[in-house]
Structure formats: C-alpha cells, structure tokens
C-alpha cells in the first residue's frame, strides 16, 4: 500500500474527494440553485389547482406513458413556430406550479399538449380520440386505448357515458362506454389551459409583447 504518502498523494483519497466535490458542484448548479430560485415562485392567479378527478386523470396520463410522445412546453416563437400551431405561448416556470411530477416531456411524436384543453375543448372528441385516434386524425400513430372503454351490445344504462364515434367507426347495435379512468383522463386533458398572459399586465408596450396569441384549433 501507499505507506508514507501524504494525504494528497494517495490515489484513493483523490478519487473520493475529487469525484464527490465535482458531483457536489454540479448538483449545486443544476439542482440546488433552481430549487432556491423557483421555491418561491407564486402560482399565476389565473391558474387553478387540479381537482380530484383531474388529478386522477393526471395519474392515468403518467401510468399510460403519454409523456413519451407528448411534450408540455411550447417553445418561444423566435425558436420554433409552436404558437402558430396553436400550442400556445412559451411556457414559464409558474405555469407548472401544480405540476409534480413534471410532465415536460422530450418527444413530439404527437403535438404539444400544454394547452390542449383550450385548443380542443370537446369532451366527446377526446373520448372518441382515445378510443380510436384514427377516427378523427387519419394517419395518426397514437395507440388506441380500448382498455379504457367497455364495448357491448345493446344500450347504455343510466349514468354511463356513451362515446359517439363518427360513422365508419360506430358499429350498429354496439355501444362504447367510457370507464371512469377515461373520463378522468379527459377531464385532465381539458384542464390543460395556460392561455392567460405569462406576466402580470404591465404598462404598454411590455404588456403587448407578453400577450398570448389567440388559441386556435
């Protein structure tokens, strides 16, 4: 062994201290600093916390891995035409005040969903689209989610939500009924609406620059 060597000449100590100091620095920069900076960011007044059903739907969004194809972070118009696609203004930290775990996402195999509730406010559309995406968007590669629905012959009973599919996909004598999980998921999707201004109104012209583009379908 390295008998007689001073502290700094022992390789083991160099590895341990060097490795941990460097990791500590990186952690301070990428984890602790954002923590301190964002800890006290107040939620925007226009942003409502999720209700119970929406939270259940959010869990379903996580469980079924929607995040692997859909981002929730529109980019600035100077970088990408996200706003022109109706995805909304560039998002800010406050928009995610109630979002833990975060669902920013890394893929756009499908479109960004941060404002899907504003862009597509139809519950019927969402239910049918979850049951069979290709009934509404030809060429879509989103999976269908038949396990969120019950399909049976006959009619629906009281209190059941029937999915109204467009003609070629609706089969005569058959009803498609949304399970509670599907209803919760749609309730969450409809709650996704950050179309309020990112900044509190300021004197012009700053207020003008911060105003969001009107959401379009």
């Amino acid at each position, binding site marked *: 062994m*390295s008998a007689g060597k001073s502290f*700094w*000449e022992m*390789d*083991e100590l160099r*590895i341990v201290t*060097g*490795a*941990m100091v*460097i*990791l500590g*620095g*990186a952690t301070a920069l*990428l*984890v602790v*600093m*954002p923590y301190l*900076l*964002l*800890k006290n960011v107040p939620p925007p007044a226009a942003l409502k916390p999720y209700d119970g059903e929406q939270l259940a739907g959010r869990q379903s969004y*996580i*469980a*079924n*891995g*929607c*995040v*692997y*194809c859909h*981002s929730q*972070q529109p*980019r600035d118009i100077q*970088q*990408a*035409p996200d706003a022109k*696609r109706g995805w909304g203004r*560039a*998002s*800010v*930290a406050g*928009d*995610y005040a109630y979002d*833990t*775990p*975060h669902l*920013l996402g*890394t*893929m*756009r*195999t*499908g*479109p960004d969903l941060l404002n899907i509730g504003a862009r597509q406010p139809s519950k019927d559309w969402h239910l049918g689209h979850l049951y069979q995406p290709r009934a509404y*968007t030809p*060429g*879509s*590669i989103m*999976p*269908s*989610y*038949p*396990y969120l629905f019950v399909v049976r012959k006959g009619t629906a009973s009281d209190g059941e939500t029937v999915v109204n599919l467009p003609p070629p996909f609706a089969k005569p004598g058959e009803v498609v009924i949304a399970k509670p999980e599907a209803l919760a998921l749609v309730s969450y999707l409809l709650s996704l609406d950050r179309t309020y201004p990112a900044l509190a109104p300021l004197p012009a012209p700053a207020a003008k620059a911060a105003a969001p583009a009107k959401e379009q379908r």
Partner: protein
Amino acid sequence: MDFTVSILLGTFLLSIAALFVFIWSLSNGLFGDGTAAATEIFAANELGRVEDPAATAVQKGGLQQAMGDASSSQMAAADAEARARADQSTSLVVGVTLTLAVVWLVLASLAGLVSSIKLHAPDWWVHYEWLTFGRIRPIHLNLVAYGWSSLAGIGVAIWLIPRLLKTELVGAKYALAGGALWSIGVFAGTVAIAMGYSDGLEWLEYPWQIDILLVVGGALVGIPLWLTLLQRKVRHLYVSVWYIGAGLLWFPTMFLIANWPGLHFGVQQATMNWWFGHNVLGLWFTPLGLAAAYYFIPKVLGKPIHSYNLSLLGFWGLAFFYSQVGGHHLIGGPVPSWLITISIVQSMMMVIPVFAVAVNQHMTVLGNFRALIYSPTLRFIVLGAMMYTAASVQGSLEALRAVNTVTHFTHYTVAHAHLGLYGFFSMVMFGSIYFIMPRVMNWEWPYPRLISLHFWLVLVGFAIYFIWLSIGGWLQGLAMLDENKPFMQSVALTLPYLEARSIGGGLMTLGHLVFAAHFFAMGWKFGPSRLGAALLGKPTLARLPAQELAA
C-alpha cells in the same frame, strides 16, 4: 448586480481558478503516477504477450503474430498462479451478475422491439394495458439501463478489481447481496411500470420504494472495491480503478438525490430530471465502459496504453464537464437561460475528455489493426470505443442551440441515445463478457462462429437502426419547424424510417438471442472441450491429457 450576470461571472472566475489548480497539480505530480502506472496491469515480463480467452487457438496464434514475437516475454509461474487465484475469487459473483445481465438483455430487446413496431402499427396489441406503448417503452429503457447495462457494468467492474489490484477480491458476499437486491429492484420496477405505478419521470420511473433496493444494492456492490483496495499489491492505481471507484460512488448518490420523495417540484424537478438523466450516462455507464476499454484494449494487445497522463486528464475532464451538461435537454424550455447556457458550454468542453480517450485508445491500437481480425474481444471493444467518440462529438453538437432546435423532440435524439448506450457501452460489454466468461467458467466458448454471427447481426442491425432513424428524425425536426406544413406531415414522413428501425432492432434482438444461447450453452458446458485453452491454474491443467503435461 443582475443575478444571471453574477452567476456567469462567478462560474467564469471559478473555472479560471480551477484551471490554475489543475496546472499546479500537474506540475507538482499530484495528477497521477505517470507512465509506471500504465504497465501496472501486466505481470513482470508479460509485455508483448497477447491475451484473449475468447479466441480459438488459431486466432490466438494469429493475434500473437500480429503483435510480434513474444518468445522472450514469459510470465513467472507464481504470477500466473496469482492471477488465476484473482480470477477465481470473483468467479461466483461475476458469473451470477453477468447471467442476470444477459437475461435482462433478452427481455429488454424484446420490449424494445415491441415498442418500435407499435410506433408504425398503432392498433397492434392494444387490448392489454401493460403492453401499451407508454408502458412497454419505459420498460424497455429501464431494463436496458438498470437491468442489462448496470449489471453487466457491475459484473465487469468486479471482475476487473482483483486484476487491477493484483490481489484476491475481498468481500465478494457484499457484491453478491448487492447484485441480488439490484435485480429484485429491476424486476419489481418492471412490474410496477407494467401495472401503471410509474413516478412519471424519464430514467426515474421506478417508484421510490423500489429505488431503495437500487441505492442499497449499488452501495453494497461498491464495498468489495474499497475492501480490496486496502489489500492492494500494486503501487499505482490504474486509470480503470479511478473510473470504477468514482462510478460506484456517483451512482448511489445521484439515484438517492433524484428519487428522494417529496423533495422536487415542477420545473425544478425537470432540471433535476436531466441532471440525473445525463449523469447516469456520463457518471455511471461511461466510467464503467471506459474502465473496461482501458483495461482490455492494452491487455489483449499486450502493450500499455499510449499515454497514462492523458487518460487521467480524460478522467478529470469527464468528471467535471459531463456532470454539468444535463441542462441541454431543456433548451427552449421554461428554465433559467443561465442554466442552459452553462450546460451548452460544458457540452462543448466535453470534446476535451473525449479526445483524450479517443487519441489514447486510437494510438494504442494504431499499427495493430490486424489484431481485430483475430481477437473477438477486441473487435467489439475497439468498435465500441470508436462509437464512444462518435456519440460524444454528436452529443456536443446536438447541445448547440441551432442544432438542438431541429433535433429536440424528434427520433434523432433516440438514435443518438442508442449510439451511446448501445454502440459504445453495450459493444464494450459484449467484448468484455467474451473475455471474462471463459475465466469464470473455466470453459471456452463452445461455438466460436456464434461470436462472429452475434457481431455481424448487431453491427448490421445497429447500422440500419442508427442511420435510418437519424435521417428520419432530422427530417421530422425540419418539418416541425416549417410552419407551412401541418403537424401530421412530420408524423407521416417518419413512417418508413420507423419501419427500418424495427428491421434493425429485429436484427439486434436476433443477435442478442444468439449471444444469450451461446452464453447459456457455455454455462451448461456444451460443445467440444478444445485443447490449448487460455485458462490458467489447476482446473485447466487437469483437463489436459497426460502426455501434453509431460511434454
């Protein structure tokens, strides 16, 4: 002063100070033990002698011929005996760990293939919740990362420790317990994702209760390293020990911070997510992969690495720069721009450690490329080392805002991730396992042709996978940036490329099945027991016919 300006100024001053400390430590010899350490992996008088237990007798002859005459270099019997004992001391724990890794590899490949097919056949197998794309894809990622890659890396690292320290492994039972806990964690995590109990963060899907198994398991796996270090019989620590030691410290620390329940929130959690997501590659898989490459390339060739000091520069460069690059995953996102800028700068600085490794390993192999024909181990590892350079340079470029604007959110990034974790890391692991298992089992690979078949299947499969998915991803990114094109056009144009990816992935999976079959055939001691074994120690001698022993 403005916060952003002060933090950038602070970072700048800190970097300048660090540079001076670095130069000072270099000039005072604190940086490492110089060239003597480079030969520490060889026994006395062993330089010049090739070693590849995966090679057949004919290949071994060719390999030695390619490296020149070695009649003058002959290990002392005592040294050979000591090395056999060192190998013996790890055989159980390494055998178990690598077997688990291979099982996870097969399952991970199947999950990956199913995910890939689902992207162009969206109504295929949709009736089972656990098979939906959003579950089978994270199952694939986690099985690859924590099942195959981590356990293969751990197995290889444990096998290397006694070889690097020239002593027997101390505390193998801790590693065995750690590996078992870890595997239970991977199994439970997979079931959790399949059932919909995911934490929802990429690379961190396992619920925190299960993460405890990986933190404790990872820490236990590290214990034999520290115990064996106390018994080391070498003067210098070879660079592989630096990488393994740091990696075994880094992973449990990061995984613990990242999974701490209730600590992270909103956008802060996103920065933490990518601090971890990139560090698990840079500070866990990369160190284990490089440790193996730094051992096996010189060991197979029987010649020390080109520059030992360069390898330590690479180590510290990787540690410092790689640990800060995570923010480049959030370019354009709702995070402070100073954080993104720092990550982009450090991503570019990664060129330094990457070239340190690339130059070092290339200069070591230079002039001996014929050796690749004869050594199955080297074929995989040298290819993997080249892909490390390619993946790293590509990664640095992808961090640039202009490039990232196109590639972010597309399949291009997926292809890049596979270049790193598959092209580099998995290839290095394949080569290492081919070298190690004959020592562990005291048995040669029964069907050498299957090694070639495995190599060509995964090489061709991966080439198809990477090239087509990269092109498709780039076109997808360009289409998304063109506001005149409807979004659906960016989806439709990727379809042929996604189908090509499934073909490539299918070939890779086939290669893994061949590899696994061969692995288990060896485990059950199938195949002819050929003579001229590469093995050392008594078990081999017992297998040699009497007249050969007499001769």
